[in-house]
């Protein structure tokens, strides 16, 4: 079985033991502060802080981060490049051959790169370290109807399922050989088919899951009981406070600069 990179990583680190709602709040704090920054140095420091938490505190294996890095950094990089060209700059920064890099374009590109990669990185940290059930119970305790809270769970549950399915379909296709003359047409055809097969099977599986869950009494009553209830943790509150202070410090430093 190939490794799951979009699912809970069973590590029992300090971050794993932080309650789910504090972690959710922490992700929100990180994302909101990042959008307040004016300078990419602050954004960069925030990304470094996140990576530090992921690698040294949550002890997420480097391999897991490496495997999703195209999702975290690749997409953000493309967005950054796009914004570099969209933003018209007027202050030359440096010149490579006939190509002059403009300060404003560079800043804007970097801003988008950091914003997206921080958002995605923080979300991955949440997925890797949080038992979704706990998050669901926490949200219900905050007053969210349980069926609604469960939708979040379902969405996250299907990430690893779809990943598994894509891997299986890709292997199966690879050994069919190539019928089209051009490599490009072949690639296109395969992509079309991945989508079709993954969607058809994904929907079937989603249906089976929905059916199975309902036949176990899900939704029978407007509320339900919980064997393990939700509890706030001190470490969670500390994590949130630390990042609020860290973000605030960076903001103040930006203003003073």
């Amino acid at each position, binding site marked *: *079985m*190939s*490794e*799951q990179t979009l*699912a*809970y990583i*069973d590590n029992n680190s300090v971050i794993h033991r932080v309650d789910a709602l504090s972690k959710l709040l922490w992700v929100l704090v990180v994302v909101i502060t990042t959008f307040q920054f004016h300078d990419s140095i602050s954004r960069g420091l925030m990304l470094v802080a996140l990576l530090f938490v992921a690698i040294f505190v949550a002890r997420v294996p480097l*391999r897991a981060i490496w495997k999703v890095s195209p999702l975290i950094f690749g997409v953000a990089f493309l967005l950054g490049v796009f914004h570099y060209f969209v933003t018209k700059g007027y202050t030359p920064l440096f010149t490579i051959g006939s190509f002059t890099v403009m300060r404003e374009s560079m800043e804007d590109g970097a801003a988008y790169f950091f914003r997206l990669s921080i958002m995605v990185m923080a979300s991955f940290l949440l997925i890797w370290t949080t*038992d*979704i*059930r706990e998050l669901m119970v926490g949200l219900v305790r905050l007053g969210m109807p349980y069926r609604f809270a469960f939708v979040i*769970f379902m969405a996250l549950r299907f990430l*690893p399922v779809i990943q598994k399915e894509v891997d*299986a*379909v890709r*292997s*199966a*296709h*690879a*050994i*069919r*050989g*190539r*019928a*089209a003359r051009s490599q490009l047409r072949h690639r296109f*055809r*395969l992509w079309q*088919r991945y989508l079709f*097969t993954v969607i*058809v*099977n994904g929907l079937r*599986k989603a249906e*089976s*899951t*929905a*059916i*199975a*869950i*309902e*036949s*176990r*009494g*899900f*939704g*029978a*009553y407007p*509320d*339900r*009981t*919980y*064997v*393990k*209830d939700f509890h706030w943790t001190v470490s969670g509150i500390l994590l949130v406070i630390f990042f609020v202070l860290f973000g605030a410090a960076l903001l103040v430093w930006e203003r003073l600069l």
Partner: protein
Amino acid sequence: MNPSSSPDVLAAFEHVTFTHFDRAAPTLVDVNLSIRRGSFTLLVGPSGSGKSTLCMLLNGIIPHLLGGELSGKVVVDGHDVAGTQVKDLARSVGLLFQDPEWMFATLQVEDEVAFGPENLRQPPEEIARQVTAALDYVGMASLRKNLVWALSGGQIQKLGLAAVLAMQPPLIVLDEPTANLDPATTHAVHELILRLRSEGKTVVLVTKDLDEFMAEADHLILLNEGRVLAQGSPRQIIEQHGLKMLDLGVWLPEPTEIGLQLVHQGKLPVRSVPLTVVEAVEAFGHFRFKDGSENSVPMTGGELLVKAEALEFSYNSRVKALRGVSFEIHQGEIVAIVGQNGAGKSTLSKLLVGLIKPSGGELTLFGKHAHAWKVQALANEVALVFQNPEHQFLCDTVAEELAYSLLAQGIDDSEEVKRRVDEMLARLDIADTAASHPFALSAGAKRRLGVATMLVGGRARLLIVDEPTYGQDRRLTERLMKLINNLRREGITVLMITHDMRLVDAHVERAIVMTDGEKIFDGTPGALFQAPEIVEKASLRPTSLRRLVDALRARGVTVPDGLNTVEAFIEAMA
């Protein structure tokens, strides 16, 4: 009297006809049956006879979640199913699915068991007690903190059963709970089911492994094409309808099949048809057997196709999937790879088609080092039929699917392509579906199309089939094996990965046994079943035919070696 009104009856069908909304013909036709409290019912029939539909009617999935046209009345535990919602029927019926991984709603084993009772608003202390009791029952108490995604196939089934038990439903319905398990794990799950029965739970079971249940069940319902052909005690049904069941392609225990064939030949009174190995020893003990010799001599000496030396593979730094495996495969052989779930069988097949590369040792494929092969080029030499054939399909019609394979081999003359496609369609008995979408075929036809896409054009020299009998009845299996045997006669080498010991014994000349990433046996099935320590270590089980031969010998009856099929056994009877 109206059967559903009797207090003794837990579930009843009265004139039930059901048509799935996307089908023209009904899946169930005028079904009448009743399930008594405390009874153990077997639901038996060929593929597509309506068994799963019947199970889903018992807990209301049909018609509430999977729609269609329902007439007649289904009553379960006093509720009219058509007028009761699925979530309300959850108190009355627990349904264990074929693949319970899909019913899991949480991350941790203990949370999973608690999920159902929590939905029913039971008090937390009460649930905690039930969770412990249910996990103890299935023998998973020590795994309660484990992640559900990290469980083995057998553990997944046991957890599914614990989740059903924790809700304490009066009726437990099990739809092929062991379809994808190794023989020893299947046996362990069977023992759990028999324990439920001995404790007076009402159980309805769909399975093709009837060997351990025929003598235990109170009631057997035989379905065909949506109709109840017969119902009664297993013995009664076998006596009256046994030959018909064989004809329909239902899997029966081998001793029973032998008994029925003998009845057919007038050599055994119908009352003596055995349901178990023990009964078979009584029934066949007085027969004399002709002296025979081992008929299957493994073919060797063909061209060397695959050579593995101290082969290693690991998916990550912690787990080694293969640890120093060595073997050779020669042209013309038919080989099975067997062993428990997770023993390294699938890893081996992926290495052979080049999807992964060895992390240690030597692997030579068709005279070239494995690292030197590209997957697409290797596809011209070796073909792999996946367990889920849908994963391999690339086109919108069956005919295009076959044409694609031809194009991939550089056969692009349209006349030639058409001729070969038509030829293959006819050979597979799926000519009438040439214009259908591959996803719309029946399970058996999908499997055959999977084999065909791999072999049309005659490129591959080695065919690997993953679980050929998975989800197929006897008739479909025989058809697939006939296709595979024909291919073999044309010189194609066949490698099967399977849990099906009957298949191994009947069709294979050589079995490679894997356990924990190591090869622990390589030889004929006959020799394998005479090595009990290997059989046990690899979670295998001798077929009931092998057990019958051993039991007869223990009684002093002289039985020749090499009786690997029902036919061979009957043939040897003087």
